[in-house]
């Protein structure tokens, strides 16, 4: 798994690639917590290059959403891969995360 973060005025874009599962989700959690810790309130998760998303990855997404909501912010998804969409739908959690076709559209949604 690789994580790349780009910060814009309105939001931070966190691009994730590879496999997000129980072996790797801790790294994603650390990166997201660091962003929230320094005051970021809106996060775009670019999940276009994620080829596997397990419930451990979902847990990180759900806890991040909760932390941001409590701080008055939000997390949205940009360009979810088919695999990401399928995991979200199977878990019934797709309704939690607004999805945008491009990173630009996702950033502009804030």
């Amino acid at each position: 798994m690789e994580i790349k973060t780009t910060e814009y005025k309105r939001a931070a874009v966190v691009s994730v690639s590879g496999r997000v599962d129980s072996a790797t989700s801790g790294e994603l959690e650390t990166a997201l917590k660091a962003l929230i810790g320094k005051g970021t309130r809106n996060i775009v998760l670019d999940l276009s290059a994620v080829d596997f998303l397990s419930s451990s990855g979902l847990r990180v997404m759900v806890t991040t959403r909760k932390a941001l909501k409590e701080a008055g912010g939000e997390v949205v998804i940009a360009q979810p891969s088919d695999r990401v969409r399928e995991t979200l739908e199977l878990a019934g959690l797709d309704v939690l995360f607004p999805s945008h076709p491009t990173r630009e559209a996702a950033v502009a949604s804030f």
Partner: protein
Amino acid sequence: MTLHRETFPAYLRTIELVCRFVGKASDEAGFDQRTRYGCQLAVGEACENIIKHGYGGEGRGNILVTTESSAGEVSVELRDTAPPFNPAGKPPNLDLDPENPQVGGVGLVIIHRVMDEIYYSRDGDCNCLTLRKKNRLSI
């Protein structure tokens, strides 16, 4: 029917290898990509439960994985030597509350939504879980 069997050490990082193993069986069954991924996801969740909750941590045993595939059907058997534990016990509710999901139960929801048949038994010193997929994934 094609049968494959392999032993994997119970580490979280080896779940990826189990998923590849299941992917191969899914290909032999002729599953589409969505169904193939669903099987990998469900088996991966079961393995995670075995490692975390059955063995109580990484590196405390093995998982013996046996796949049987035929046209349109895959069966995956997971055997471990952890204390008696069903890694795929049915969650009380398959419909999670989206606003307050019980994050620990998401894996079980996925297993039960993907697989068509799930059997658990205790066989001597082994937990034996069989996950069977017969139909195209519809969700």
